[in-house]
């Protein structure tokens, strides 16, 4: 499958959208070339503010911009937003300011800088804040489409962007809808519900599972909050076996959200693929790192087999 950079697609889309919407402003904490806000910076210097390594103040500056009627996108590595968790909680979520938090270099995608730069708990933290919407892009097309969707969504949003080049899953006709999952592959025995880069891994797993006679749904659950619970419950009723997959801890992220939804209304067998409550290591490649920490295609296949086997008993 052809690959494209998720972060670059985001950065270019932001610059493109700046033409359409004069209220969009961008703040960044000294990582503009990394998180690709450089395209916006070149085009709209009067609406671009590089505030240095001041993550807490960056969020508050974005809050002030929002109070003044702008739609600010605040950018840095996802892990660094944890420094500003209280700013995000009080001044963005509670004060319900129209700030878009873009956590880049998500999950383990900054493989080479190691565990200090990995992030396994951002979705869990952001998701538990009232008023906060949490979305993640699975490929370059979705990242691009998310920029207007996020900007035009009224209120706080956390947008999770990977550092990696990911297989292109969507064509131009795809429409991002916050609150809706996208079914990429129909199945019957099991549903693989994934977000971010794990979506393409699930598609590969589903192809292999088909050869074993297991028909697997594959869903891009880009909207982690609000979760598309109707879709989750429908898949649970149809298949009775769910596997979630994310580049995040199995605690509190997509897997946690799906488990909560299933537990409340439609309990079925659930396997969660993700970082298993551990810190990680540095690696020479992102794929190798995902494989090493239990997020490999084989891990997804095994989880699907387990879920199917358990419901059969």
């Amino acid at each position, binding site marked *: 499958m052809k690959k494209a950079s998720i972060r670059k697609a985001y950065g270019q889309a932001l610059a493109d959208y700046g033409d359409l919407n004069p209220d969009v*402003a961008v703040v960044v904490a000294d990582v503009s070339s990394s998180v690709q806000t450089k395209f916006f910076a070149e085009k709209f210097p*009067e*609406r671009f*503010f590089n*505030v*240095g390594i*001041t993550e*807490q*103040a*960056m*969020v*508050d*500056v*974005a*809050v*002030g*911009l*929002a*109070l*003044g*009627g*702008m739609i*600010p996108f605040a950018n840095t590595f996802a892990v660094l937003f944890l420094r500003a968790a*209280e*700013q995000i909680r*009080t*001044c963005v979520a*509670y*004060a*319900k300011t129209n700030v878009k938090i873009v956590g880049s270099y998500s999950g383990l995608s900054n493989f080479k800088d190691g565990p200090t730069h990995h992030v396994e708990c951002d979705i869990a933290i952001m998701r538990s804040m009232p008023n906060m919407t949490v979305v993640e892009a699975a490929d370059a097309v979705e990242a691009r489409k998310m920029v207007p969707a996020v900007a035009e969504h009224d209120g706080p949003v956390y947008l999770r962007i990977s550092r990696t080049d990911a297989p292109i899953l969507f064509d131009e006709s795809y429409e991002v809808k916050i609150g809706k999952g996208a079914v990429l592959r129909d199945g019957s025995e099991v549903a693989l519900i994934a977000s971010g880069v794990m979506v393409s891994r699930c598609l590969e797993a589903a192809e292999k599972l088909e050869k074993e006679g297991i028909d697997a749904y594959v869903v891009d659950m880009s909207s982690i909050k609000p979760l598309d619970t109707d879709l989750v419950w429908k898949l649970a009723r149809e298949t009775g076996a769910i596997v979630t997959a994310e580049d995040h801890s199995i605690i509190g992220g997509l897997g946690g959200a799906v488990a909560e939804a299933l537990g409340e209304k439609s309990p079925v067998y659930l396997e969660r693929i993700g970082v298993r409550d551990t810190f990680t290591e540095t690696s020479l490649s992102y794929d190798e790192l995902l494989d090493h920490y239990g997020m490999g295609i084989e891990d997804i296949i095994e989880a699907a087999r387990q879920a199917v086997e358990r419901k059969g008993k």
Partner: protein
Amino acid sequence: MNQITQKPLIFIFTLLIFDMRGNNMAYHSEQLVKELDEIAQSLRMDALEMIYRRQAGHPGGSLSAAEIITALLFHHLRIDPKNPNWEERDRFILSKGHACSLLYAALARRGFFPREELQTWGHIGSRLQGHPDRLKTPGVEMTSGMEGHGVAVGVGLCLSARIKNLNYDVYVLVGDGECQCGVIWEGAMIASKYRLSELTVIVDHNHVQLDGPVHEILPVDSLADKWKAFNFATFEIDGNNMWEVLDVLDMAKEIHNKPTAIIAHTTKGKGVSFMENKSAWHGRPPNDEEYARAISELKRRLSKE
């Protein structure tokens, strides 16, 4: 104009501004100062009554800020209670949100909402939360109460005014204990980078924080040197002296190439003798007897003014 000024120098600067404006009369009329002083004193009583009634709140830091909040809301700010969302209004952010009893009293007296509503403070369903909530209370520009946010939020407001070509000033009142928060200085650096002359930070330097004297808990001195080092035009005044508060706010407007910091030396618990300079009164309400004493002291001072 950017050197740290001692009090006598303030007087000289004030004279300079008089000259610039060709006005050799007293800059602010005695009548205005008298009226504002009376309002400040009344707000102190309102705030204490609110804290007493609710048996919760922060007397010390509310009383210390009475002159500053009064000067801003009743004279200096371009605001319109009938049109609280007027796009070009000046913005006031009470970053030290725990002083909100005094802010609520001032907003009510200024006509943003009915004064009777002050009695609902802290009740479930009230528009007046334990700390300011921008979504609930008319006139509250920004949700606050978690220390440290005001400066950087003010920076964002100034930047947005520049993009949108709007002409308003932003005033942020912070505590001296609050200046222990790193994010204050992050915000200060950013304000300095963008030369935000529209931004004025006022430090209510009452020298006392929750756990004790600021110089014991974590010294912040010299605040004036610190703000000056962050490239703010910096003034020091007696923040419980209405003349000086009014004058320095006008002086800050004359600064056009950098943000301003006003170190307002105040007395924590100002106006109630047994509350003054005592950390015990940072966040505890008076009992019946203490309340009666406090109000009679404030009334006595009011009648003198």
